[in-house]
């Protein structure tokens, strides 16, 4: 379970998070929405330990992330996957090498098993045909799918998705949404998804939270929020809000 309690974070004089409290139960997809600049990606970076809160508590499975030493943080990150907006692939490695990177670097498996695992993940994201291609030669949607395969290859317990459909057309976006749901259902991975997209939220989420002024403005199930009269929920999840 991921728990944030009363988290504050400022960059200079600009306060981003102002007492954010959030719980992501295990096995569910939690979608975090909110206007630009309200700290959605900042929240993800606190959970993975890239950012430290000014105040408050960030816990993963009961362990306090900001208090972790380097080794503990490395161990935590091995249990987590992170999908970046653009995939964040290494340009000089092929698609297959990118996916294999975390396994190779940690020496977790013999070479044969790494190859098998990589191809299994590439098949899952429908990228096995592009294994030998390089990131500059593939489309944005393919980069995201490759990034997702890389995030999943270590068989993480949690995956953090940062704007998984930003800049993608509706067809590719739908494919990515289906993959996120598949990942939850087949690999039993807990997901925290940051998005602006109503389609993504309604397709992928078990629960939705919407940030406002640096804290959670409203939270509930998809049905509760889609049919809510709350103006914040209507802005993000009402008909025509995409």
């Amino acid at each position, binding site marked *: 379970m991921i728990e944030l309690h009363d988290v504050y974070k400022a960059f200079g004089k600009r306060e981003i998070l102002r007492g954010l409290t959030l719980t992501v139960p295990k096995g569910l997809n939690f979608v975090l929405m909110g206007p630009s600049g309200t700290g959605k990606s900042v929240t993800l970076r606190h959970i993975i330990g890239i950012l430290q809160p000014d105040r408050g508590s960030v816990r993963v499975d009961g362990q306090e992330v900001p208090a972790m030493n380097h080794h503990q943080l490395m161990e935590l*990150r091995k249990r*987590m996957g992170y999908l970046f907006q653009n995939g964040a*692939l*290494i340009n000089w490695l092929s698609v297959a090498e990118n996916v294999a*990177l975390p396994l190779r*670097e940690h020496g977790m498996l013999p070479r044969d098993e790494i190859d098998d695992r990589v191809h299994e993940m590439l098949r899952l994201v429908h990228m096995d045909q592009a294994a030998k291609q390089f990131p500059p030669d593939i489309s944005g949607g393919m980069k995201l799918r490759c990034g997702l395969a890389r995030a999943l290859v270590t068989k993480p317990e949690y995956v953090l998705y940062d704007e998984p459909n930003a800049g993608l057309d509706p067809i590719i976006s739908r494919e990515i949404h289906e993959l996120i749901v598949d990942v939850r259902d087949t690999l039993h991975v807990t997901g925290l998804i940051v998005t602006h997209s109503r389609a993504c939220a309604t397709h992928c989420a078990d629960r939705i939270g919407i940030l406002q002024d640096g804290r959670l403005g409203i939270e509930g199930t998809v049905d509760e929020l889609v049919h809510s009269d709350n103006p914040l929920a209507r802005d993000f999840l009402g008909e025509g809000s995409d």
Partner: protein
Amino acid sequence: MNIVTAVGRVVRERADGAGYVCDLLLRSLVALRRLPRRWRFSLDMAFNAGVRSLPVTLVVAAFAGAILALQTGIELRRFGDTAVLGTITALSMCREMGPFITGVILAATVGSSMAAELGTMKVSDEVTALEVMSVDPIDYLVMPRVLALALMCPTLTVLSNLVGIYGGSIVAEQNLGVSRDLFWISAREALTTSGTLLPKEIYAGLFKSLVFGTTIAAVSCAAGLRASGGALGVGLAVQAAVRNSVILIIIFGFVITWFFYFLA
């Protein structure tokens, strides 16, 4: 904002930047224990760095040697002492000009490219992605680059020394009437008189180029890894990498010369 605050801020930023470079360099040295895993990548980087800058280094070194011989020879001719032209050209190239030229060219070609590459990776979240995968960016990205330039800068310096002296010998013969044999004999004597296996003139210059190569790589990687704010940030990182590398080359050049010829 008053002037004291402004100066204080600039000094703090510079000190912060210098501290970051030193930290990066130390962590790269620690990361050398993982060299067997990075050996192939380091050699690729070294090959690319060498090949990319070899032609321009040789051209500049040849002309630098020629200019050095010409300027010195014009004055020596007034005193009728052109016989020592080979000595002066060889010593100047090996002690100072060779390492300096090579360092500046590596800073402009390879250093700028390292800063741009790592800067682009930083602003497009690729460096963060490595951290998230528990892959140390210093070990994965910086150490092979530092090692590559630490190897290639002395290698290119040896070549630029040779080519520079050769350029000087052509000018000495064509413009100053010094025979090529006389030029090369005096050059060889100047570089072998100490009676040791590797004369001070050579090893001091090679040590200087080793320091230059390491400095350029550390400064350029640091500039890239501190880039922020998209394409503009990457441009500023490249600018900072080349500027700081050249300034440090000049300062370290002076310090090392002082150490070898006045202290050691």
